[in-house]
């Protein structure tokens, strides 16, 4: 039976259940605040947010592939475009854009103009090193690892630190070939 055509991010976003955006924002804010109170070190909090994002990402990728019906991406460029246009739209309701491709095609930037996680947020002076949205970098890293791509994701621009948009740099480290858990000759 032929596969259905890939659904656009808008179509999927319209068909899934929605939650109140302020509830989502306030819940995420409460998580970050609690992490800061528990761990006290900004670097530790950044690492925890990344780890939380990673755990979300490894599970989110299955839902994404089930709902989005996208065919296998031919190269990393297509992967990045799919993440930005379909993935972000489907789960956060915002559209991101992909820019700054390097010569190899292994490194790009995903730019988010608006970000529902950071409504109403202002970083106090004591937390200036905090990457408030670090959970997003973990999500992308976890999701891509489940489809055999090892990546490294860093924040290059962050509105809470004074820049004008959110920019994630996504660098493909290597493609991990699928391993079988048994040897053929045994």
């Amino acid at each position: 039976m032929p596969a259905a055509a890939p659904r656009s991010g808008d179509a999927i976003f319209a068909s899934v259940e929605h939650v109140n955006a302020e509830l989502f924002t306030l819940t995420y804010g409460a998580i970050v605040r609690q992490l800061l109170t528990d761990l006290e070190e900004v670097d530790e909090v950044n690492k925890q947010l990344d780890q939380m994002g990673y755990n979300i990402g490894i599970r989110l990728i299955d839902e994404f592939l089930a709902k989005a019906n996208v065919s296998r991406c031919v190269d990393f460029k297509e992967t990045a475009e799919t993440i930005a246009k379909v993935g972000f739209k489907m789960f956060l309701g915002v559209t991101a854009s992909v820019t700054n491709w390097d010569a190899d095609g292994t490194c790009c930037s995903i730019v988010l103009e608006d970000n529902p996680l950071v409504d109403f947020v202002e970083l106090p002076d004591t937390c200036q090193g905090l990457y408030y949205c670090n959970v997003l970098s973990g999500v992308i890293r976890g999701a891509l690892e489940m489809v055999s791509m090892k990546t490294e994701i860093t924040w290059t621009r962050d509105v809470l630190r004074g820049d004008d948009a959110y920019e994630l740099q996504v660098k493909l480290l290597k493609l991990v070939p699928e391993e079988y858990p048994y040897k053929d000759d045994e």
Partner: protein
Amino acid sequence: MIVCVAVVGHQNNPLYIQSFTEADDALKLHHVVHCSLDVVDERVNNPKKSGPMLNETYLGLLYPTENYKVYGYLTNTKVKFILVTTDLDVKDADVRNFFRRFHAAYVDAVSNPFHVPGKKITSRTFAERVSTIVKAFGLSSAG
């Protein structure tokens, strides 16, 4: 001309005080705001019998002193907004509009996860928005 705006918490602790003229003494304005809190409490505890609703947020003109008029606004969480102005003829609708926008800015400032309820509001965005609202008020009542 708006001289000063203040946000006072439900335990009558000051959360935000900003004055908009350089000439007046900040201490005198603190005193005026503090006295107005007594009037607010009196209005809250003795509602007028002909008052429309018990949960009226806008308190109106609290009391006129020699130079100033003081307006009050009470939120449902017992947070009070105090406005001190030197304008002689101020339309009620303008003040209500001012307080509505001020309330919206206050709600956004308090939704910041790093804001501790009961502590002073340190948000720079809040301060900027308040300045904008004050400037807009000045223009609308002058024109």
